[in-house]
């Protein structure tokens, strides 16, 4: 290669900010998936999360700096089921990275093997801000996250078959860890079996289903539609009659209304984290599930 061309290639690589021995660059949409991606990818990957964990997945800001991160990414890892529709499609377009556009090999949709709950039988905005492919908040179900891990490992291997055995070994270890934790959580959550809850948004159905609880309803009239005073009154009345056990307020929803509903119905109020990093105690995935389970159990033991 002529010397001048070699020089220009080196300058271009320097401008791109790439180290000499580049790791596989992965961008995950939420910290839960970022943690799994790190565990599965090991030393071969460098992972960044777009969300920090405190956000509502439906309102992660669409920052141009995210477009730069995605522009450099070899793969993007996402929950799927349109969970990230408020920010990811536009950012992928702005990133101009053909390797990670929708349905390319670098687009790793972790919902691939998840048994999806709450699939709507009718798609109509009159029913609120529906997710047409089903409820996407499966990151709160550790068994569904085992399936997500499988999708991540597969996606990594598809793009980098030279590391397939490493990815497979790591995902097996991760899934074995999760199996052990699920067994522990299932024993710990035994007192919650049959209990009922109302959450602000329908994002606790996977958690409830996993640990034997029933979702009575939501504070939102419909997904994404804030309650009216009339609806709230009616909800309180129904909750009283049904003796609902818990009111779940995800930390990014307003406190006052949830507190009022809990007071007026006698249900115990819990303020949950919905992603890794949502609260300091939820510094990893095990910590997230532990934190939320502990909240439920402490609330059960406390006076209403």
């Amino acid at each position: 290669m002529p010397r001048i061309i070699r020089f220009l290639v080196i300058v271009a690589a320097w401008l791109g900010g790439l180290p000499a021995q580049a790791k596989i660059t992965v961008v995950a949409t939420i910290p839960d998936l970022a943690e799994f991606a790190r565990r599965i990818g090991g030393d071969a990957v460098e992972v960044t999360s777009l969300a920090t964990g405190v956000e509502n997945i439906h309102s992660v800001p669409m920052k141009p700096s995210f477009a730069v991160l995605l522009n450099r990414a070899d793969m993007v890892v996402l929950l799927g089921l349109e969970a990230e529709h408020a920010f990811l499609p536009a950012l992928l377009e702005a990133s101009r990275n053909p390797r990670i556009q929708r349905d390319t090999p670098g687009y790793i949709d972790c919902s691939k093997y998840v048994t999806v709950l709450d699939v709507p039988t009718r798609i109509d905005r009159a029913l609120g801000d529906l997710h047409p492919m089903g409820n996407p908040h499966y990151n709160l179900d550790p068994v569904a996250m085992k399936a997500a891990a499988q999708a991540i490992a597969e996606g990594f291997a598809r793009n980098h078959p030279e590391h397939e055995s490493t990815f497979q070994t790591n995902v097996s270890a991760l899934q074995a860890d999760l199996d052990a934790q699920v067994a522990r959580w299932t024993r710990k959550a035994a007192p919650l079996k049959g209990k009922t809850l109302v959450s602000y948004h329908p994002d606790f159905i996977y958690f409830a289903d996993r640990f034997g609880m029933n979702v009575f309803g939501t504070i939102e009239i419909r997904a994404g539609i804030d309650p009216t005073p009339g609806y709230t009154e009616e909800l309180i009345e129904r909750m009283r009659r049904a003796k609902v056990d818990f009111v779940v307020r995800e930390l990014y929803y307003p406190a006052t209304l949830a507190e009022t509903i809990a007071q007026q119905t006698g249900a115990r109020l819990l303020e949950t984290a919905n992603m890794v990093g949502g609260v300091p105690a939820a510094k990893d995935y095990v910590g997230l599930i532990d934190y939320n389970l502990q909240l439920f159990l402490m609330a059960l033991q406390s006076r209403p």
Partner: protein
Amino acid sequence: MGFSLRDCQPRHTGVAMCLGLILSGSGALGQTVEDLRRDLQAMKAQLQQLQEKMKQQENLIEKLSAQAGGPAAAAAPGTTMPPAGAAPEVAAPSSAPAPEQEQLERRVTENILRKIQPTLSAATRTFPSQFNPALSLALDTVGSYKENRGANFEFRSAELGLFASVDPFARGYAYFNGTNSGVEVEEAAIVTTSLPYNLTAKGGRFFADFGRLSKWHDHDLPFVDRPTVLDKFVGGESQADGVEVNYLTPLQQYVTLTLGAYNKIGADNRQTDNATGRPFSQFTYLVRPSTFINLTDANGIDLGGALAYTPKVETFAFDTGVQAGNGAARYLGGLDLTYRYTPLSQALYRKFIWGTEVLYNSEDWNVEDTTTPAFRRADAFGLYSYVEARLARRYGSGFLFDYEQALNRQSGDTTTYSPYFSIWFSEYQRLRLQYTYLTEPGDHESQFFVQWTGVLGSHAHGFRDR
């Protein structure tokens, strides 16, 4: 300040006819879509039944494995089997399974896959309409009362949007806008999706990358009307027929550069007729760098500059007979800054935004009449600045200040002050109340607006309109 003034441009009746064909065919299409929806729902129900069956089968495998004394090798509840055609994959067991167990697993898997294969094939079968573009319809209507002009209900816009991929290399989109004046093609462009070196090229009719709010559709604006400085200096929306190339630099900092060439910029710009040819010196050329400064997780600033250069503006006349252009160049420059505060954990409920654009125009104007024209260079300056705070999930209020000098500097300045209040019933429906105090040469006026906007159909959060 008033409504966006659109001169009566020649309307393309062919577009209206095409729209009529699309809408008249929607009866037959709607029926087919209904049938398809029903079929899909039936298939979804069948799939769910099959998934339950698979769960039962997996539990059986676990039971049999336990009886056989081997480790549980089946996937745990909550997972689904890989789709047909893919090698079935399960989590690796902690020790090697017995051969009989492996055989049993294989037989069960094959049995299940055989049973669900027809349903899976049906689900992936293509329908003729599957390649149809996504559709959206934005409806925008305004009621107004202006002190000196009276009241009016203005049907502002029914804007039909279509978007789809063209092929692996490009996507296309179009907006057809129906207003009081007729139907026009507001935008229709092809955009590349796979050019190398972080390049994107766009060609057709689109909103040129000048400034910030000139690129927004009317119904998306943060206030009822576009700031008059943009109406006067840019010509309303920065609609342009031409070609544009955008480059995302390989820096760690987000920096983009746009270069464009167009017949003209501005939907209401009368300098050039899109239908007739002209020398290259009468095209308008644009350069725009922009960047984003991430101050903290919750604070950021978008910053941009733009220069639209027309080497030669030939003489043209407004409806009033006023002439402009004498072959001299026109320079239209702008600086735009947008500051956002979005607390990450409260982004649905709390936001603050400050947006400002400063514009500068320099061109020759005829300061006499058509029989004895006398052209003089006029440099004019204008700006708008607004602040908006989201007070709750569904309420927000703001204030807009708008100032511009007359482009030909032959008359006084125009200023508006506009407080406004928005109510979002949902992400797709909004009510807005706005008061505007307008001061223009020889006149001042109080204006009241109520705007009601709704969006139907496919919904995508755009990067341009964030």
